[in-house]
């Protein structure tokens, strides 16, 4: 049976209630008649032989690159960099695609007699991965072969001895990246392109960069002019990364980019109903939903979090392409769109979304209020091409418990950002000007980032900047079911129910607004005409 494309449902009187994610749980909401619900396309068929496809891609690169074996020789310095724990979401069932690609690259390197090989997790300013996470991403064989010898490293954006400044772009942007990677004879980058924002020059120019470099594009000005940052040609974030990437190439850094795309088969069998359309739920799906919802409502949040964070996704490989960065990424982007694209006619007054338990920055961690804002206004809002799903001055309604809970080890600066910055301003520009540098250079945050498993001190600012375009675009943000104090701290309006939220929204969009719900995840990209 061929897979079905994405779908825009118009709610009528016979439409069953719509599933809304609500953190570590979900609920059903009856949307007003005439509302639209956007469903993701069904999963693209997986590649039957991933190892074969990977090998083929490495032997048949695109763009101005020789096949990988031709680039490998004895005595050379090879660095293999890979995307970190933030991808994919949820983490995929073993074997992880990074493991499959890296094993194949290492086999070719071994065949060519390359013995100076170092693996680098491209963290940028993300937290360091744990051994368990590294083992999951790379497999035990790779981990055990490299980690004990100090050959499996994690990029340290605060290690002056292992950074190199390659110059400035014609826009004055500093390009400073991982020294080992930059000074290698070949840099192989292994990417997972879960969304269209990922990959391309962003892989190296962001994943292996320092704060000095990142600040040129991770700032409110850039983010407000990235419309959206999921659409590379319209994204200032990407324009900056592309300028940097080209400078990196001109500096003599030879990159062999390997990009992969996954299908959106997101949930394992016991949660499969979450990616079905409600009217197609079987009796068993309904029973599973009812039982799960009831159980979760009685489960302490900490336990519920453990349950959900243990979910491994059956994501499967749909494409792999390798070679020169831009040529590779053009193919990758097309493949991402083939999986995720949904045509949508026109904008809406109200955009609703149920926010799940996970975003790129709380894998095996806690979704704190700043990440809630980022997931809703940074990610979900920006999952468009053309124009935003919600009209300018419209309303975003999100559903999430938004508890003021933080992982002290992973997000220490987030706690201070929440208590010491958001209490004074929610304006990205003002906080950028008044607070960013002190957080970015704070010695304790730097220490925790370098030696523990903490996100960099500046990271909560970046999460807030991720919201900058949405914050400037929408008239109001309402959070249903969230901790009222936390929601207000974010500058949003709390509502106890969807009906309350719609009533609050009517102050902004009038009594008869149009409403569109993004039924996400599984994720999709709206092509808004």
């Amino acid at each position: 049976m061929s897979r079905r494309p994405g779908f825009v449902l118009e709610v009528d009187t016979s439409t069953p209630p719509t599933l809304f994610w609500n953190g570590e749980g979900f609920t059903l909401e009856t949307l007003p008649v005439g509302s639209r619900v956007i469903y993701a396309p069904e999963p693209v068929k997986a590649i039957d032989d991933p190892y074969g496809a990977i090998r083929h891609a490495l032997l048949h690169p695109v763009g101005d690159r020789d096949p990988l074996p031709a680039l490998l020789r004895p005595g050379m310095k090879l660095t293999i960099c890979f995307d970190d724990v933030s991808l994919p979401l949820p983490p995929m069932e073993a074997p992880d695609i990074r493991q499959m690609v890296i094993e194949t690259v290492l086999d070719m390197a071994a065949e060519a007699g390359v013995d100076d090989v170092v693996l680098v997790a491209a963290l940028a300013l993300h937290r360091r991965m744990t051994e368990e996470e590294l083992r999951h991403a790379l497999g035990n064989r790779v981990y055990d072969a490299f980690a004990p010898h100090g050959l499996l490293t994690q990029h340290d954006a605060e290690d002056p001895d292992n950074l190199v400044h390659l110059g400035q772009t014609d826009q004055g942007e500093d390009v400073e990246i991982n020294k080992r990677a930059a000074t290698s004879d070949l840099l192989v980058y292994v990417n997972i392109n879960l969304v269209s924002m990922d990959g391309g020059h962003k892989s190296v120019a962001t994943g292996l960069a320092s704060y000095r470099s990142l600040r040129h594009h991770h700032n409110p000005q850039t983010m407000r002019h990235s419309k959206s940052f999921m659409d590379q040609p319209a994204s200032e974030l990407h324009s900056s990364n592309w300028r940097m990437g080209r400078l990196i190439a001109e500096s003599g850094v030879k990159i062999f980019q390997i990009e992969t795309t996954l299908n959106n088969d997101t949930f394992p069998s016991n949660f499969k109903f979450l990616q079905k359309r409600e009217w197609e739920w079987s009796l068993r799906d309904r029973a599973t939903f009812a039982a799960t919802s009831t159980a979760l409502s009685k489960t302490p949040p900490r336990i519920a979090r453990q349950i959900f964070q243990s979910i491994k996704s059956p994501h499967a490989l749909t494409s792999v392409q390798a070679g020169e960065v831009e040529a590779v990424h053009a193919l990758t982007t097309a493949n991402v769109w083939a999986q995720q694209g949904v045509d949508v006619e026109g904008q809406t007054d109200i955009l609703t979304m149920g926010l799940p338990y996970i975003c790129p920055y709380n894998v095996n961690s806690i979704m704190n209020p700043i990440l809630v804002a980022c997931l809703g206004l940074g990610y979900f809002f920006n999952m468009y091409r053309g124009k935003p799903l919600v009209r300018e001055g419209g309303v975003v309604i999100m559903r999430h418990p938004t508890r003021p809970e933080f992982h002290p080890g992973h997000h220490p600066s987030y706690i201070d950002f929440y208590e010491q910055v958001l209490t004074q301003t929610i304006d990205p520009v003002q906080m950028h000007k008044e607070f960013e540098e002190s957080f970015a250079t704070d010695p304790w945050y730097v220490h925790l980032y370098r030696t523990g498993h903490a996100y960099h001190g500046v990271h909560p600012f970046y999460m807030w900047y991720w919201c900058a375009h949405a914050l400037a675009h929408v008239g109001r943000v309402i959070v249903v079911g969230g901790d009222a104090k936390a929601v207000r701290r974010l500058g949003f309006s709390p509502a106890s129910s969807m009906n309350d939220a719609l009533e609050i929204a009517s102050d902004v969009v009038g009594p008869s607004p149009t409403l569109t719900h993004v039924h996400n995840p599984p994720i999709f990209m709206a092509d808004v005409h």
Partner: protein
Amino acid sequence: MSTLLFERSLPRFAAARVVSTLGSGRGVGVGPLRLVERDAPAVPAEGWAHVEPTLSGICGSDLATLDGRSSRYFEDIVSFPFVPGHEVVGTLAEDAVGADGSGLAAGSRVVLQPVLGCAARGIEPPCPACQAGNVGNCGNLAFGHIRPGLQTGFCADTGGGWSTSGLVAHSSQLYAVPDHLGDSDAVTVEPVACAVHAVLGAPIAAGDVVAVVGAGTLGLLVTAALGHLASIGRCPAPSVVLVGARYAHQQRLARAFGCTEALPDDQLARAVRRHSRSLSYGGASGTTATLSGGADVVIDCVGSPESIAQSLAMVRPRGTVSLVGMPGKVTVDLAPLWHREVRLAGAYAYGTEPGAGPDDRVPTFALAFEVAAAQRTGQLVSATYPLTRFEDAVAHAGAAGRRGAVKIAFDVRKGPAS
């Protein structure tokens, strides 16, 4: 004439102590305080005058006394029965001379400087502290021609502010209230003077990080005093003033008084760490995290074991913790104080402060009037009660923060509630 009288009664004292464990101020109904009819006290000597209170505040030390929580240290410098109330604005019942030597006509509005030092006690020559202008440190509080009492409001001979019949005050205690200052601002002048004294006594240097623990009346007034005195160059300007304030209204007021950040008290140490750019270690298994650096000066306006421990955890090595809130008997781990050579200093009351010249001294109250006017400290007066509703008033004061209030005062002019 109605007067609230605090008598020596051990059973009632014990009862108040037990009931107040349910909440500060809750034990006043069973405690030693009662409303009685009583005439004004007689002037004890020449140089004294009658003052008819208008407003009289309820202070943290009053609450500690009413709750039976105050230290036994004070037993010998208090005489019973006494009329509480040492934060007083009132009018003179007869002509008098003020603390600055100027004449004050009957009917003049005055604020009371309540410390009963050598001058008020008729002791000649005065003790070295009084000679130096540091009346708060007077060593003769149990001697002279009035009975023991560290302040008006704790002395059996002077009366106190919680009385419609009035009190007696020595000329050294009288400060004229400027016309531009309302009664609400004026009734805060005494605690403002405490705050001014604390700020000017702390070794604050320009660019320092200063933390204020607690944002009740004292914490907020320390913040207000620091903000104003630094702005006019009377004290070095810290680069950062952080205030730990449990409640939203306290945070709002602290910000209005000019602090850099006001944040929940459990977040204060994190803010100190960030602003002092310190590292932090420990904090697991119930221990207090230790900072590699910390605040240069911590002003503890609470005085509890927890606040003192918190202050010691936030101050930098060789920094200073200034105790402004009245402490009692506390158990606290002094290992960090010893190891980091921290100075723990008391800051009590007022006297005189350094002036413009090397030998100049300025009365703390003179500066307090400036601060009260500039920062409109009367805005802290959240509610006033007639004496007849003293139980409600004290309960309100005991739960001020939780109930969105700061300073509760008696409006001594108010009659019984209808």
